[in-house]
């Protein structure tokens, strides 16, 4: 049973401040087409919408199913109430990161350091063998990479956690 004192009624304002969220009538369309609904535990998008609306803060903070989303956006297409569930999933992840820095994806550190999550443009021999010129990547342009980093460092989530990005 849901206890009133466990509920933080205005949680939705902090997570996903859009009026359409409250039009969700729990129809399950978002779940029925979702690849990650086959997971264990399953990603049940409508349950996430309920948690946000009802303000189940602790439960939602511990819930890692939003991270199983494949971003296919079927839910976004099919939702009859225009809740935009994929945007909601991203918003929940962002809220989790704001409240628990250990959830911040390491991919953003990679991007800060070299512009990409992968080593792009360093496979010069392979590229040449395929008839490809070197790629004009930011990894190989120190001046541009520094500008990109300076821009990111002006953003609160990044400057607040700057220790992740140094060294």
């Amino acid at each position, binding site marked *: 049973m849901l206890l009133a004192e466990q509920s933080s009624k205005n949680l939705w304002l902090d997570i996903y401040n859009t009026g359409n969220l409250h039009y969700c009538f729990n129809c399950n369309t978002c779940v029925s087409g979702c690849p*990650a609904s*086959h997971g264990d*535990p399953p990603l049940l998008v409508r349950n996430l919408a309920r948690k946000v609306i009802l303000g189940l803060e602790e439960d939602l903070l511990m819930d890692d199913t939003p991270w*199983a989303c494949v971003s*296919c956006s079927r839910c976004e297409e099919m939702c009859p109430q225009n809740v935009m569930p994929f945007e909601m999933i991203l918003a929940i*992840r962002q809220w989790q990161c704001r409240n628990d820095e250990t959830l911040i994806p390491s991919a*953003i550190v990679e991007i800060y350091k070299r512009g990409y999550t992968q080593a*792009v443009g360093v496979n010069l021999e392979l590229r040449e063998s395929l008839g490809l010129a070197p790629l004009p990547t930011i990894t190989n342009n120190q001046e541009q990479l520094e500008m990109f980093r300076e821009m990111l460092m002006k*953003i609160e989530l990044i400057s607040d956690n700057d220790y992740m990005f140094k060294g």
Partner: protein
Amino acid sequence: MQLCFFPGCNTPAIRPDVERAIRASLPVLGIEVVDADNYVCCPAFGSFPSADEEAWMATSGWNLSIAEQKGCDFVVQCGSCYSSLRMGREHLMHDVEKLAHVNELLEPTGRQVTGKSKVRHISEVLFQEIGPEKIATQLKKSLQGLHGIVQYPCHTLFPSEVVGFEKSPRAPEGLRRLVEALGATVDSYSRELQCCGGAGGFMKSTPEQALEFAKTKFDAILEETNPDFIAVSCITCLMHMERVQNTFNEQVGEERYKIPVFDYNQLLALCLGFDPKEVSSISNVPRDSVLSRMVPVKPKA
């Protein structure tokens, strides 16, 4: 026509033969490919979009400004890059405050976003800008006699209001028509529109179930069709649909799943006469069964 090619990360890092196929085939069809100098991660949905809205918009803005500076639209193959760039642009174009703030962040870097450059998927450019009819007239080789199936990238279908270009996202036809233009017959099957399941955290968080999900698709393919190849138009679909077939074979202890997977531009570049060693050399499922059966097209008198 000029288009600025946004390569993403997987294509240039892991499958540069796909990049070669794109850079080789587009100019033959009248598209001049311009480099996206100093582009950064699109950003991938699992990165800034999952951590912070402001950082997502700033990174999108950085990339969008490059196409604007070049004075043309982006052309993108990777489904995730395409969708992330389209969504980023959508957010910025529908919120003047957000746009103004991103331009403040970009200002010291000499960049600016106005929205004048659009983001286009390569299958849309091929299907709607160039067209299957024109493609069919340029071929040196054909896939005549071969059967294929197509995998539409989810990110080009949904949400259709933001990323779509098909008449109906529930009955897409672009990729089918493009493959047919190369002479092949395209077979339909019940799970044609099922996601490959390769993007995001599904495979990482619950790999057993994610593989089972992909297997339902492949079992439907084998039961309902007899394809010589799968044509995709997204780097994640390409890599995932190869990788899972190898895993299934290990699970069942026999080589049951061995359908060659090609990015559409690879098939196109092969049919335009480019060297398979350059445009189709990297794969985890052998492709010889397709390459050896391509037939020369006689020049019209």
